[in-house]
């Protein structure tokens, strides 16, 4: 008989396919916010891509939602250790948004209403890996979950999927965003448990 008991608080997670190391399943959708929830009227919403040479390409809400969209089902993994599998979203692929953008930069900084930022390598936004999502589970995205629109980069920890997104900046050198500058990992791969700097 083992001496060490896992106790009543231990969560079984060894046998769940799709669950990265150190994560547990949740069926809720926890809300994590680093500041007040911005309420953005759709007639004041815009999304702007800025290149490393200062070129800009912008969409207002009606232009953005007229773009071709994808309906995707993905697993999401928060660095605070909850994972939610099989979530359904509608959004515009970054492949679509970046199709006519000329850039030689390798990195991006995602910007949000309210000042939040997070850095993502450009290649992690391409080839069907990332979207600007505006519906969750068939409904308009609630402000608490990042509405009107949020980044969705499900293969990285969910802090990279910035809420209330309003811009993408191409940058030549990788730079830490809001949480990365405060100790979190510069890249954030949940399958490698890249939670903090040095992981």
């Amino acid at each position, binding site marked *: 008989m083992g001496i060490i008991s896992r106790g009543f608080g231990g969560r079984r997670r060894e046998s769940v396919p799709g669950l990265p190391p150190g994560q547990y399943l949740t069926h809720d959708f926890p809300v994590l916010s*680093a500041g007040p929830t911005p309420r953005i009227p759709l007639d004041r919403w815009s999304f702007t891509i800025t290149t490393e040479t200062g070129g800009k390409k912008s969409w207002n809400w009606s232009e953005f939602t007229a773009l071709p969209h994808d309906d995707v089902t993905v697993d999401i993994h928060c660095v605070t250790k909850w994972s939610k599998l099989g979530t359904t979203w509608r959004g515009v692929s970054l492949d679509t948004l970046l199709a006519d953008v000329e850039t030689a930069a390798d990195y991006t900084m995602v910007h949000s209403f309210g000042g939040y930022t997070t850095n993502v390598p450009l290649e992690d936004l391409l080839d069907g890996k990332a979207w600007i999502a505006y519906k969750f589970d068939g409904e308009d995205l609630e402000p608490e979950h990042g509405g009107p629109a949020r980044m969705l980069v499900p293969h990285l920890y969910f802090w990279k999927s910035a809420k209330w997104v309003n811009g993408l900046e191409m940058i030549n050198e990788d730079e830490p965003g809001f949480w990365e*500058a*405060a*100790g979190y990992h510069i890249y954030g791969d949940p399958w490698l448990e890249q939670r903090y700097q040095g992981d």
Partner: protein
Amino acid sequence: MRELDGNAMAGDLREIFAFDVTVARYTCAGCGDGGAIAQLMLWGQEMGHVARCPHCEDVVMRLVHGPDRVYLDLRGAVRLELPLAGV
């Protein structure tokens, strides 16, 4: 989610400083307003403390508690004013 004020950082800050930093006065880098650390508005406790200026809502302090170290980011404060004990 914001439910607390800067007093809730007291435990984590005591791991870094040898005195109670919540009584220190900050000067916000955004608006220049000042007050006690304990008066900052606290958000985001799940990933780490995000302490915002109650006057302009800019981030004054971020504190992230990793498994083996604590990260304290103070770029939102241009100054901390700390009382000396016994003076």
